[in-house]
């Protein structure tokens, strides 16, 4: 409540008070709004120029041809036709979906399982939390270059480890069979820290009585996991699932730095191809058409994610 609502006793006539108050209150509201917009104006300018305007422009660009010499030219659906005629376009989508699928199998299950185990351990809790989160703090380029070196088939760390226990070495990022899987491993290693810690926080909120009650009813560990732990963390699991789909569909740094899309286009992702269209071929219209398709594909996931986090948060 603002202070202006408190009536002020004045010796003047009732009429005079009323007459003086109404315009005063209006003026007050105008001043308050002006102040508020003063505080907002920098944000409005930044959002307008670097968020709202690019959104609108991105949609328009999808239907234009841009060459920086003459004005943009309307070309209808031609940019989309270019994309669908490009064999790499389908390959890029297939690779990206494959990456996202593998990342879900590896990167979604592992952090949850790790969090469940960590939640039971009573020692060295700080150490576990710290080391699992360390890779998250490293710049993604550092991680990508480092793992490229680990993947080196000769003196690389991984083949050395495999060979030291008598297993044959792998070709990792140099073979079309394992290249994408190798990228998923890097991405999971570098990102699983945040997921693990978020799950740990969620597990800590489960009331102990639920487990006790389930145990009294004769539920064994697996049943308690299924009927207490998972239902109690369902919301977080769903949010993280959406977040992971949105993030992994936009994978760029790992293929760009580690493989450049190869071998034989096996790691060309949607974003890598988009980057090529825009900054190698200078075809910003087709690149925008690709962004629009990616947005349409991910928009539903994003909307659901926002709705969930806003209503429950």
């Amino acid at each position, binding site marked *: 409540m603002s202070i202006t609502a408190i009536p002020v006793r004045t010796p003047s006539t009732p009429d005079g008070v009323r007459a003086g108050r109404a315009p005063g209150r209006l003026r007050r509201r105008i001043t308050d709004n002006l102040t508020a917009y003063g505080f907002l104006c920098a944000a409005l300018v930044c959002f307008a120029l670097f968020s709202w305007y690019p959104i609108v422009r991105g949609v328009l660009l999808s239907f234009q041809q841009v060459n920086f010499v003459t004005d943009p030219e309307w070309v209808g659906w031609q940019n989309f036709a270019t994309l669908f005629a490009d064999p790499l376009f389908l390959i890029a989508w297939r690779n990206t979906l494959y990456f996202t699928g593998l990342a879900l199998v590896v990167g979604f299950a592992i952090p949850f399982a790790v969090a469940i185990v960590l939640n039971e351990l009573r020692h060295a809790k700080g150490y576990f939390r710290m080391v699992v989160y360390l890779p998250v703090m490293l710049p993604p380029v550092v991680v990508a270059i480092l793992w490229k070196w680990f993947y080196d088939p000769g003196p690389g760390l991984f083949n050395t480890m495999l060979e030291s226990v008598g297993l044959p070495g792998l070709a990792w990022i140099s073979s079309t069979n394992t290249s994408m899987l190798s990228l998923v491993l890097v991405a999971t290693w570098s990102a699983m820290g945040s997921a693990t810690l978020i799950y740990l926080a969620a597990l800590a909120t489960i009331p102990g009585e639920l*487990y006790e009650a389930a145990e009294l009813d004769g539920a064994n560990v697996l049943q308690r996991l299924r009927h207490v732990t998972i239902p109690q963390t369902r919301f977080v699991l769903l949010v993280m699932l959406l977040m992971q789909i949105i993030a992994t569909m*936009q994978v760029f740094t790992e293929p760009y730095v580690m493989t450049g899309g190869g071998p034989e286009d096996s790691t060309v992702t949607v974003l890598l191809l988009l980057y090529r269209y825009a900054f190698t071929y200078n075809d910003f219209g087709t690149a925008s058409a690709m962004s629009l398709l990616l947005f349409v594909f991910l928009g539903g996931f994003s909307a659901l994610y926002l709705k969930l986090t806003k209503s429950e948060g």
Partner: protein
Amino acid sequence: MTRTLLSPWTLRSTRGRIGYWLVFVVVLALFTIAFVVPLVWMLLGAMKSAPELARTPPTILPDRFTLGSYVEAWNFMDLAGYFRNTVIVAAGAWLLQLAVIVPAAYALSKLRPVLGNWILGLMLATLMLPASALLVPTYLTITDVPVAGVNLINNPAAIWLPAAANAFNLYLLKRFFDQIPTELLDAARIDGAGSVTTLVRIVLPLSRPILAVVSIFAIVAAWKDFIWPLLVLQDPGIQTLSVALQRFEPDTPINLMLAGLVLASIPMVVAFLIFQRQILAGLSAGGLKG
């Protein structure tokens, strides 16, 4: 200690204890192999000479412990310059973002102007877009900023300005400000404090925890970012560490490269060790409380 999946009785029995310590040792070993060994391998690798690194099987400890590679990498890649560029980019992004979103969050939370909820809705709607869907149009906007008519390519402002339009951090701040009792602000107003004074003297001191979280998010994001600086900082003289390391990678001896990777990571790792509590608290601040 609240009870978890396993019952305390099971853990207290002899079999339970053996099982617990067995699992503990296995997890400890796996975590160390998965997360510590790679980083130690990087640190050790940076101390080995290039021919030593090419040996198969590799040596575990370097032939001799030396920080020579670090010094050599520092000079070879001119890391001092890239560090300076990265600090300028990250500090600028952080300060500008705070200067823009703190007053805006305060206005939307406490001053509540006409259309305020509308504006907030439009800002939050930008979170629905995958960041990469905006790369091309934002890049074209940066090459020719409307109204101002300037080209910000190769200017750190190309990173600062879009970073300031951060709806996520703005929303975190607004939600925190919402919890500050209005009576407190009214009291300040009775004492004659204007909106600016109220923000600076009352709201900000109460908001230190969330300001810490938002600051860490902003700085870490700017330090780690790769694709956007790759696009807008094309002149090698002003590139950030991530962009420069990636550019040097093909023709730099691997031991120097590793030293460069270690050096580029140190500020983030140190920041993590210092601000661990705030960073971990910030993880659940994004509305992920189950």
